[in-house]
């Protein structure tokens, strides 16, 4: 065992440590079990680490990644970083183009999330075991939702562009489609986690099935749903910034162009705009969550 020098330890050295170290041989003789290494356990640990590293090195070799390429790239990245300073937007016309791109990004995130939530709302109840007891119905609904969710927003954007053409509308529909799958699953889980007593209470006073959902289930699930919708709105703001790369509107298109033409000052400005917008949306959505469902539930 090595004895670290005083310089390497930020905490003041305790005299207890010196005393213990001086008596180490004696302690070892008295408590041999504590000092004996667990060979089997250590072999398993080493084996796992070796396997992880092995696949890692195999991957690097297969993908033909060399230190030279990494170093060259980093050098070039350093040059870009210098070229990015100071971030600027150039002409006023370009700034207004950026701002309208940003507005489109926010519109895509907002409407995409909202539409997904509205469409998923009834499906959340349909896919919930305690509302529709039919096993086949909720199995079928769940599988459809799973498939929608498994396909990335960007792929949905490519498909919707074929339908409504290039532009933010395709982005809205793309976010709507992929989030519909996610919301349907989350909503149905929220509905299944509700307390059945409220529903029974409504039914016992003579309420109908629909009334039991409206006054028994809805008040229980609504705060959960709103909280999830707000979280998705935050994450969709990020998705909507890149959806323009495939032509589905928003600020991503400008970003893609400026990178292609090596206008690094503009790229830095755009990235800053994205960062500020995302931070602002996070803040607003956190405030809204507290305002709507109270501090404790948030």
């Amino acid at each position, binding site marked *: 065992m090595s004895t670290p020098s005083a310089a390497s330890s930020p905490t003041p050295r305790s005299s207890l*440590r010196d005393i213990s170290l001086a008596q180490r041989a004696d302690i070892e003789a008295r408590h041999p079990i504590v000092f004996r290494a667990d060979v089997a356990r250590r072999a398993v640990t080493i084996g796992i680490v070796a396997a992880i590293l092995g696949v890692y090195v195999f991957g690097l070799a297969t*993908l033909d990644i060399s230190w030279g390429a990494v170093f060259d790239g980093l050098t070039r990245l350093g040059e870009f970083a210098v070229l990015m300073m100071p971030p600027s937007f150039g002409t006023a016309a370009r700034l207004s183009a950026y701002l309208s791109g940003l507005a489109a990004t926010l519109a895509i995130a907002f409407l995409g999330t*909202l539409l997904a939530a509205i469409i998923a709302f009834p499906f959340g109840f349909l896919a919930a075991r305690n509302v529709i007891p039919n096993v086949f119905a909720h199995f079928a609904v769940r599988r459809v939702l799973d498939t929608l969710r498994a396909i990335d927003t960007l792929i949905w954007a490519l498909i919707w562009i074929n339908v409504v053409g290039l532009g933010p509308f395709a982005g809205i529909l793309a976010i709507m489609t992929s989030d519909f799958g996610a919301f349907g699953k989350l909503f149905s889980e929220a509905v299944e986690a509700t307390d059945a007593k409220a529903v029974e209470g409504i039914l016992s006073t003579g309420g109908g099935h629909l009334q039991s959902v409206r006054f028994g289930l809805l008040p229980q699930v609504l705060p959960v749903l709103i909280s999830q919708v707000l979280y998705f709105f935050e994450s969709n703001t990020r998705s909507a910034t890149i959806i323009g790369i495939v032509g589905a509107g928003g600020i991503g298109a400008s970003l893609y162009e400026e990178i292609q033409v*090596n206008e690094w000052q503009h790229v830095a400005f755009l990235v800053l705009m994205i960062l500020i917008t995302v931070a602002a949306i996070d803040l607003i959505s956190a405030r809204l969550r507290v305002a709507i469902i109270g501090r404790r539930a948030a």
Partner: protein
Amino acid sequence: MASAIRRLPDAQAAVRMRAYDGAIAARRRRTYLGAALLLAMIGLAGNVGEVSIPKFVANIGNFTSYIGRLFYLDSGQPVVANISEWFWGVTQKSKWLPLLGETLLIAYIGTITGAVGAFIWSFLAAQNLVPSRWLRVFARRYLEFCRTVPELVFALIFVVAFHLGPLPGILALAIHTTGALGKLFAEVVENIDMKPVEGLTATGASWVQTVRFAVLPQVLSNFVSYTLLRFEINVRSAGIMGFVGAGGIGQELLVSVRKFYYSDVSAILLLLIATVMIIDLLTEWLRHALIGREAGT
């Protein structure tokens, strides 16, 4: 047992009823105001987002026919009639299967590299381990930056710096993973039991020794669990890295969509979905095995 309910005198009840009605009306007003605000925002966003219901209605047929066409070969046969023709790219050298493998490797290397970065940064960002406020604030801001910039934006920039290929994809995923996992790891570290740390500090152990013997055993299982979850997410992301030229099967998918090779699109999508589902199952199994091992010892 039935018991009579004593009613308040009408005069007193009326006061309370008025207060109740007032409270209800105030809540209603707030709800209506919120709904009106939401409607206004929908109108504004619809305008900015170029939403056009007529266009949607007129072209929705394209969507269903597009989805339908995905399942027909160029020869007009339905895809299920000729599976080998549908999945022709699977048997080709340097086609779908190697590209799928490349996608998985990008996700794997990106996740491991990012997790190692997150591991180091998380200890620096944890309030209970780092007394220096400035170091902590710096670590937190750095992690925030890493996870706020979308990974595809990093990939776009890296493609120019590192040229086309899997390397920019790996680095983009690694940086994003560092940001996302670093935050989660730091939260795990802040929630540990501090008694072992105090015990080691009392014996005069160095900072590194304290982390190794007092902190690590408490956090490792959570770290591994979060990393496995992140790996699942990164497999999905690696699937689209090829859209910007950062390696993997995404490039092939983009080309198929742009050139209207319908049956190829559905074949690649099915391969991707199947891969994602298998990875999800595998990592879930691993996580449960890990938790079991943890509980057993």
